[in-house]
Structure formats: C-alpha cells, structure tokens
C-alpha cells in the first residue's frame, strides 16, 4: 500500500511536471483481483462504470478466488472477489474490517455430450453416483428410469472435473454433500477434492478447459458455469430438486432458488440445497470484498459509487451475460451495507 501510494505520488508528480495538468491528481485508481467465474460480467461492469465516471479507473484481474483473498489480506488490492466468500479466520486477520457484498449469482450446470439426447433428466440419487464413479454407463437403469422415451447409448460415462482449485468445485461439492451422505463421507467439500481414481475420470483446468473437454469427448459429463455451457451450446441436464421436480438451468430456476435464501448480517449465505418447487438446485452468490476503512476518503467514495452502479445498472445485463440478477430485497440489503465502506 505504502509502495503503491509512493508510486502514485511519483507518477502524479511526473504527470504534473510534464503536462502541467492539475486535473490528473484527482484520478482515482481502483484495483481488484479474484474470482474468474464472475470475471466476464465484472469486466463489462467496470468498463461501463469507468466510461460513465470520468476520473475513476477500475482494474480487475481474474486470478481465482483464493488468489484474490490472498491479495486482499496482503493489502495489494483495493477490493477482491470470491465465489467461496471468506472464512471467519481470514476475516479476523484483516485489521480494517471486511465488508462482503454479494454482487451477482450464478448457476452450476451438468453439461454432457451425448449424440441426440436433449434435456436429460438426472435424479438426485444419480448424479452424485456418477461423480463418485459408481454409475459408469449411460444406460444405467437409474438413468433410464428417469428418462422415459429417451434411448440412452450403451456407452461409458467420462466424468470431467476441475484440475485446478476453484470456487466452482467448492459450490458443486457442497451441493453434492448436502444431498448424498456417500459423497460427504467420501470426497467431501472443498475447492479441490480427492475425486475417485478411475480411468474414466479426467480433469481439465479452468471452466474453459472442462467445457472444451466435454465438447470433444463423446459420453462426457462435467460441471461448469451456466454461462460457459450456454456460450458453447453444450447440452445441460435438468436436475431433480429438493421437492422432487426436474428443473432445467436458466433464469427462472435460478431466481426461484435465490428467492428462498435469507441473507444474514455478514452477507454470507450458501444454498447447498434450495427449497422451492421451481428452484434449480445448484445456484450460488458470488461476493466482492471491501475493507471497512480506507486511508483515502476519495477511494472509499469511488468504491461505494462502483457498488451502487453494479446494483442499479449492472443487474440489468446479468441475465444476458449468463448470470442471475440479485433479487430486489437483496439489492436493497447490499445497498445499505455498502455504506459500511468508509
């Protein structure tokens, strides 16, 4: 931080000396890093925000949730973003205090590659079994029973998981643990878990790597962000929710899932198995983290402005970008909480 402000002083000094532009001194630069899952929408927001607000520059680096938290705790950034929120002990290590704000929400889908099979139904007794390596064939009786009228091939299932540590895996395994005791006592929840060793279990790096692998492998299934699956036109499975209904991923299912969650004081809420007839079972918020106290009031003000912009203007483009807009009551809660950034 010190280094940075020193650099800023030098840079500003140089600018003033060279161009005699006192206006340059009022430019506020905000740097953030973290989650790659919301990065496409964040970068769009920040670009538009910068255009609408002269004198504020926002830079965001999609390094991954864990790297973002580390940067945030080392004070090398002004804000960070994470899909796995922040642990209590991590929050306790930040002297200025931490304000977490959910900014958008997304869905995780099971995308698959089966010739001619559209809108596959996967019961909640089945898909944890696939990811545990227990259900190995596409024409397994349990899958056939849930898909009347669909001819499923006698083909082995290739399961694609994430090779790198990721918030997507965290949310996905949290859901699997919530619905399957076998999964909970086996791999468990985490940003990386110990997937069973099978010849038909492959791993690929990042959301795009998993997407590409599913697309190139007949008989593959894997978990990716909704936006990625939609962009690459992969088939997505309808999943059985808590009430026993099969729900396809998309805006309605996601919004229904979010509607059932109550946001607590610290703004961290998980939906491992949302209730509601229309809820898609795998939806999650994603957070930005701010310090409660900033050295420069201009910076704090710019950050508050940025949050409000994301809430008011940003949510409008969320659906188009493949994310779920925040429900109205959440928007108001976040707006109120953003006042804590000082």
């Amino acid at each position, binding site marked *: 931080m010190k280094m940075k402000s020193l650099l800023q002083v030098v840079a500003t000094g140089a600018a003033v000396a060279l161009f005699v532009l006192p206006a340059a001194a009022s430019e506020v630069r905000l740097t953030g890093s973290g989650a790659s899952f919301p990065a496409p929408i964040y970068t769009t927001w920040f670009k538009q925000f910068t255009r609408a607000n002269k004198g504020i520059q926002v830079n965001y680096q999609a*390094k*991954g*949730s*864990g*790297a973002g938290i580390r940067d945030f705790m080392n004070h090398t950034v002004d804000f960070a973003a994470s899909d796995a929120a922040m642990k209590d002990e991590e929050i306790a290590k930040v002297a200025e205090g931490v304000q977490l704000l959910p900014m958008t929400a997304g869905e995780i889908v099971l995308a698959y590659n089966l010739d001619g099979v559209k809108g596959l139904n996967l019961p909640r007794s089945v898909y944890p079994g696939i990811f545990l390596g227990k259900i190995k064939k596409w024409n397994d009786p349990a899958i056939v029973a849930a898909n009347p009228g669909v001819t499923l091939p006698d083909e*082995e299932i*290739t399961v*694609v998981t994430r*090779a*790198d*540590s*990721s918030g997507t895996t965290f949310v996905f395994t949290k859901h699997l643990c919530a619905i399957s005791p076998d999964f909970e006592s086996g791999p*468990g*929840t*985490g*940003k*990386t*878990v*110990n997937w069973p*060793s099978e*010849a*038909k*279990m*492959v*791993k*690929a*790096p990042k959301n795009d*790597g998993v997407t*590409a*692998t599913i697309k*190139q*492998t007949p*008989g*593959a299934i894997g978990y990716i962000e909704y936006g990625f699956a939609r962009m690459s036109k992969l088939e997505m499975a309808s999943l059985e929710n808590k009430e026993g209904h099969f729900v396809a991923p998309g805006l309605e299912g996601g919004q229904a899932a979010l509607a059932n969650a109550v946001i607590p004081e610290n703004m961290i809420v998980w939906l491992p198995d949302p209730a509601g007839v229309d809820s898609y079972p795998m939806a999650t918020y994603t957070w930005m983290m701010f310090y409660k106290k900033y050295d420069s009031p201009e910076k704090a003000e710019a950050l508050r402005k940025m949050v409000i912009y994301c809430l008011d203007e940003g949510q409008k483009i969320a659906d188009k970008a493949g994310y779920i807009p925040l429900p109205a009551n959440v928007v108001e809660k976040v707006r109120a909480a953003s006042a804590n950034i000082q």
Partner: protein
Amino acid sequence: MAMKQLSGAEESHSLSRPPSSVDILFDKSFRALTCTFTWATILLLAFIVYKIGRQAIPAVSTYGLGFLTSTTWDVNAHEFGILPEIWGTLYSSFLALFLGGFFGITIAIFLTQDFLPHKLEMILKNIIELLAAIPSVVYGLWGIYVLIPLIRPVADLLHDNLGWIPFFSTSLSGPGMFPAVLVLSIMILPTVAAISQDAFRAIPHKTKEAAFGMGTTRWEAILRVMLPTASGGIFGALVLGFGRALGETMALAMLVGNANEISLSLFAPANTLAALLALNFPEAGELEASVLMYAACVLLLITLLVNIAGAAIISRTGSGGKK
C-alpha cells in the same frame, strides 16, 4: 621490405604492438563483466533453490520421504503424495523422447546428408525450427480440438482388438497419456532436430569422403560412420529434449487428464509434476503451497539428475570416440 617492417615495429605502426593501457583496461573490465555475469547466474540459481527449498521445509518435515511414495492428493484431508506425478512425468517424457528423438534424428540425417538441394534443406530446417516458436497453450488447444478427435478412432481400434496389451488396456476418454505424449514429442522435435543437425554438420567433410573412399554405400556411410561420429552431439540433443519434456507445463496440463493414477495404459489419464504445480499454485493455501514447493524440489532434482547423467554419458562417449 624486411627493413621497413622492422623500423615500422619500432615506431609501433605494425599490427603487432604491446597493448596500450586502454586495451588492458578494456580487457580487464570485460573479464570482470563476464565473470560477474557468470557468478550472477550461478547465484541466481542458488537463490531460487534456496527460496524453494526454504518454503518446502514445513512440508518436508511433515511428510518426509513418504511424500514420494504415497499416491493420494487430498487437500481437505491434508494427505499428499506425488508418486503418480513422478511416474507420469518420467513416463510421458521417456515416450516423448522415444518418438521425438527418433523423428528428430531422422530429420537431421535427411537434412544434412545431401538428400536435398542445399536451398531446400535450409527452408525445411527453418520451418522445423518454427515449431519451437509455437506457444505451449496453442499446442494444448490444438491437442484438444484437432489431435484427440483424430486419434480417437485409432485408439478405439487398438483398445477393442489389442486390449490385453497393458498399453491399450483402457479406452481413450479424451485427455490422456497418448495425446499428451504426441504433443510433447512434437514440442521437443525442433530441439532434437536442430542440435543433431549441428552435430552432423560439425563432422569434417573428409570423414565422409574417407568412408566413401573405403567403398561404403551411402547408407553404410551414414549409419556406420556419420551417426557414431555425431553420437555425442546427438546424445546432447536428446538430453536437452528430455529436459524440455520434463518441464513442459501448459500443453500437458491441458492434455494429460490430470488424474492421480499410475497406469501403463497409453489411453488412461495421468498427471505430471509441472502440470500439478501450475494448476494448484494459484489457489493453494499455506500448507499446500509448501507441499507444492516440495514437489518443485523433486522436479528440480529429477531434471538435475537427468542432466548429470547426460553429461556423464556424453563425456564417456566423447572419450570413446577419440580412442
């Protein structure tokens, strides 16, 4: 003439004269500079090893040598072992060396032993060296989108008909050892080909003429005379190629399947040390980072051993050639 030269020397106008103080200064400072750079490089290496080693200490003291023989990698249970990665690194590198080495040396023979007009040789040589300029991630993407669909029918055929051979015992699910090895061998091909070509070009023309003079055919000359004479250089090329294969990261991370598994099957997913490091570092916690540093030390050690072994063999074959 002689008189003139002598007198010239006295007036120090000739080519040979004692060095001036500027020359001496230049010479000394050049020496100092090169010496500094050499030591700086060595110190830099020492510093890197020290840094990695120090960060690895917590992991080394926790997991000890069991780390090298355990096969579990479970971040949540704090259980770490890299035997599958060590196996995958060596297995993929050896296979790639076998393939890339064979083709690399063949290319070097083809391009240096007067099979083609000189101009065409130069063009082909440059094109092959261009392979080295392709970024690793492009190789990875090419592997996923082009190579895997291309080899899938072959792999399925081999698995269906020759599944009893351990190398073909599983069916190819996409990313796996085989596509990774193919891409890896293409990546080390330019290194092997270029250095082997230099080794062949370094042989004096007389050697070949002498072989022909003794009545050898062209193939006898190449296989019995040229190849053994160039063997030191070719071996150096193979060692360098192997080193590159060991450390190759991104293309492998995308193609190898990243599964913690030890399998002889070419179509099974595997993992390598470099891919493990690259994929897990960005999100690693404190302990995991230390464990990864430990794995990095192991990779460094493997590379070092390979280089030492390579150097030893080269020096031995070199002395053997002189006899």
